[in-house]
């Protein structure tokens, strides 16, 4: 704040105070007396919204606080490996990847990795958290254990250093999915078993009781930071100068910021204002028209459209158990009726490249190579209102218009009146609402009787799993994982976890490809089972192509845009050295997620 501003501030304050003749308050910045000097503190936001609850690493993910819960945050507890979505490589963390195949994944534990109490990170720690599902079915990482039969531990010599080698043996009968094991290895953070095993013993082996143990900054951790303080307005992390990885992974350097503060804001505007004012150094929220903020130093991965690196696909899922969305012709007509360019330009502020038919993001990241342009042309449906009308007419659908020319309803080929289709989406998510509104406009123009169905988020979540919708807007993948894009196909198309409408299903919300129906296409399940086990690139490419072809023909869902995995925004007002498309040394994620954690060692104070 320069003197001029201060002066204006005093005048403004005096004016405001003068209105009622009472003292307004002290007008000065508290920088000098702050326990967290700005030059040593990095401000990042967007991962914690509500009050901090617990930093207990055993607690359920939804109930724990950043940086312990909700995502692959590597600051306090660390995973074995980090996945770099830019090059598809596995970067060492607590362990390093030795080999992976369809049968086993071999990882060496970093012999230098230690807990903050000085104990070595050991195979016992890894086994504790990975195999906890065999003891407690409802533990947050319980699912891990279903994918391997065992974790073999042996001692090997690496350049004369005794190292523990872990071999995850892929469970072949039911899951047979090494991709998911890799997801788990990069997402599951290891906790010190000597602490938590004891906590379990002290609490009569009751996991619920252990999950409620309060945890503070004195907890035994392995990461480069520890929790320093938490209030309802912020979470503060402090650098651990004795972090093992400084020497083992970063050539003796320490992370540059001594403190990381995550302010907890109550509205989206706050992020944008704080970034523009240089009070926030990085954020991950949707800020419309980000190019208007560039003059205030708010930057993104690309400095022009689409600004962000794509990583996730929002889709419309259609309920395939009822008419008319059970008809693939109808679904294809819908896909042809939506103006994807409007979605891109108007709903998501241009933060998407042009999209192509199919469920693979054409030209994006590691998966881009699986896209086949000829197939897309031959089998896919793009925006084409005339084609939409033609498909509908060919399939016998008729639109009935009112006297004033507006759409009244639609009939199928038997002449039965069809119900209005509602597109369910959480109310108040402005970019999602805009997507739905644009889609409704296109659908109605093509003669399809669709309407917006905005509901409270608390109603949206249960409706999603139980299939209580006509059409649903959802985003099947939230992060680029080792299993992407397989996981996207699985989330959209699998019927291996089939539950009827009314019961909860975590994939395939639209109940596509009922295994008990006549139309069941066994090829979908076969390909979904096969892809994770393939390591030959040519075969893998072939399998993805076949699966994407089925997706385009049957159209169980409609991809709408390619959005970023995270809206990675940063300001260079205080700190420089952020990765960008021009200097892609880390993926476009805030420096606490997976392979992007290394940004912390690269930042410099702005001059």
């Amino acid at each position, binding site marked *: 704040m320069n003197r001029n501003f201060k002066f204006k501030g005093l005048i403004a304050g005096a004016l405001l105070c003068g209105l009622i003749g009472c003292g307004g308050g002290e007008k*000065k910045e*508290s920088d000098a007396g702050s326990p967290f*000097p700005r030059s040593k503190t990095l401000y990042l936001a967007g991962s914690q919204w509500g009050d901090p609850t617990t930093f207990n690493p055993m607690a359920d993910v*939804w109930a724990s606080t950043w940086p312990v819960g909700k995502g692959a945050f590597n600051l306090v507890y660390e995973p074995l490996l980090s996945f770099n979505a830019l090059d598809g490589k596995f970067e060492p963390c607590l362990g390093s990847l030795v080999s992976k195949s369809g049968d086993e994944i071999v990882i060496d534990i970093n012999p230098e990795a230690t807990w903050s109490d000085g104990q070595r990170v050991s195979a016992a720690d890894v086994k504790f958290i990975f195999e906890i599902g065999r003891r407690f079915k409802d533990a947050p990482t319980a*699912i891990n254990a279903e994918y391997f039969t065992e974790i073999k531990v042996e001692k090997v010599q690496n350049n004369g250093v005794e190292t523990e080698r872990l071999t995850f043996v892929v469970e072949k009968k039911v899951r047979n999915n090494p991709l998911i094991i890799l997801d788990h290895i990069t997402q599951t953070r290891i906790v010190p078993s000597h602490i938590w095993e004891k906590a379990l013993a002290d609490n009569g082996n009751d996991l619920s009781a252990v999950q409620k143990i309060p945890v503070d900054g004195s907890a035994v951790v392995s990461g480069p930071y520890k929790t320093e303080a938490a209030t309802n307005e912020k979470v503060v992390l402090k650098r651990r100068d004795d972090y093992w990885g400084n020497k083992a992974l970063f050539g003796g350097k320490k992370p540059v910021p001594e403190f990381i503060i995550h302010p907890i804001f*109550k509205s989206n505007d706050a992020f944008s204002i704080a970034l523009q*004012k240089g009070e926030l150094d990085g954020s991950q929220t949707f800020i419309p028209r980000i190019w208007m903020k560039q003059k205030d130093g708010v930057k993104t991965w690309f400095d022009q459209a689409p600004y962000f690196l794509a990583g996730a696909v929002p889709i419309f899922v259609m309920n395939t158990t009822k008419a008319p969305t059970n008809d693939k012709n109808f679904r294809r007509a819908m896909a042809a009726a939506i103006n994807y360019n409007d979605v891109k330009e108007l709903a998501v502020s241009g933060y998407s490249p042009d999209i192509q038919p199919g469920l693979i993001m054409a030209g994006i990241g590691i998966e881009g190579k699986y896209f086949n342009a000829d197939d897309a042309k031959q089998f896919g449906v793009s925006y084409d209102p005339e084609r939409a009308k033609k498909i509908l007419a060919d399939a016998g659908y008729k639109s009935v218009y009112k006297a004033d020319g507006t759409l009244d309803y639609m009939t199928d080929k038997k002449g039965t009146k069809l119900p209005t289709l509602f597109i369910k989406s959480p109310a108040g998510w402005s970019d999602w609402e805009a997507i739905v509104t644009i889609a409704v406009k296109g659908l109605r123009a093509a003669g399809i009787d669709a309407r917006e169905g905005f509901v409270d988020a*608390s109603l949206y979540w249960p409706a999603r799993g139980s299939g209580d919708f006509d059409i649903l807007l959802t985003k099947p993948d939230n992060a680029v994982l080792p299993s992407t894009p397989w996981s996207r196909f699985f989330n959209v198309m699998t019927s291996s976890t089939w539950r009827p409408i009314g019961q*909860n299903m*975590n994939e395939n919300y639209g109940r596509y490809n009922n295994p008990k129906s006549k139309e069941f296409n066994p090829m979908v399940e076969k390909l979904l089972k096969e892809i994770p086990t393939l390591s030959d690139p040519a075969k893998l490419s072939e399998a993805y192509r076949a699966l994407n072809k089925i997706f385009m023909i049957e159209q169980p869902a409609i991809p709408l845009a390619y959005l970023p995995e995270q809206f990675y925004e940063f300001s260079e007002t205080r700190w420089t050295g952020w990765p960008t498309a021009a200097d892609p040394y880390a993926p476009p994620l805030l420096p606490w997620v997976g392979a992007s954690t290394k940004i912390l060692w690269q930042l410099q104070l702005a001059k």
Partner: protein
Amino acid sequence: MLKQYPTLRYILQRGGWYFITFVVAVAINFYLPRLGSNNPVKIIMGNTSQGLSSEAVKEKEEKYLKEFGLVKVKNGNIVRNEDGSPVKASILEQFISYVGMCFKGDLGTSFQKYPKKVLDVIKEAVPWTIALQLPTILFGWIVGNVLGALAAYKRGIFDKVFFPISLLLSSLPFFVFGMLLVYQFAVVWDCFPAMGGYAGDLIPTFSWAFFSSAAYHYVLPFFSIFLIAAGGQAIGMRSMGIYELGTDYIKYAKWLGLKETRIIAYLFRNAMLPQLTGLALSLGTMIGGALITEMIFSYPGLGMAMLTAIQNNDYPMIQGCTLLITVCVLIANFTVDILIGFLDPRVKAGLQIGKGK
């Protein structure tokens, strides 16, 4: 009984009614959130079940149902129907256990902020809410009423300028005014902080740095509420004043040739009565927080906590907040009732007549 103590009788009678109101309000607050078909555990599971096997999902769901007291439990085990599904606890059973817990001073555990206690959430938020709301309401009320009474009595040019300004202020929505303040003072002029209850680099402590920072951050949120509240009060007082000016007793007083200050005092006292009730109501509801202000300024307080609780069917949190609001509204109203009993000659007269019976 108590015939010879009409005031005491009045207070007891009022107190009795307030107690009944309290019981009914608590019951309704308890019942209403449970009317919807949406069960809070389903909301949590919708967020958390990704990637779990259906068996684990079921186990987890039952764990929460049991933990939150939504199913019947016998000897630590869930009571089950013949098909193995847990037997839901009826609303009456939930109510009884809730009242029992309340008497022990336990408002339960928040579902959404699990494993945080409702009481802790309230304790953390309420000081901020009171610090923001109490001064704005009181100052707004006093300043508004004085200005309103003046406008009513003086009329002329003062009123002609003052009235439209108050009208404008009082009809401005909070969020528009708040955003205008942020834009002008925090973004364009950059002389006040745009958000937060204190500087981003501080932790609340009993220190000069914290309190001065809190005071600095207080200015914009304060004015965003104060000006609008004062405007509204002033309009109310002005019209009440003008009405009272035309009443017989004022005319009579003038005719008697009483001093002007005396007449204004009478006028003010009578015109103030409805305003006083209004004040009581706003003081009572203030504890619910200034949601819009909290959101615009990312200001700490109870409003946001309540909003998320309602959105997520967080029963214990909703109950805790509404209980607090109920108690505050009733206490505030009760106090005003008693005060009016002393201030309002008509009520006093009523009491006198009661004595005669």
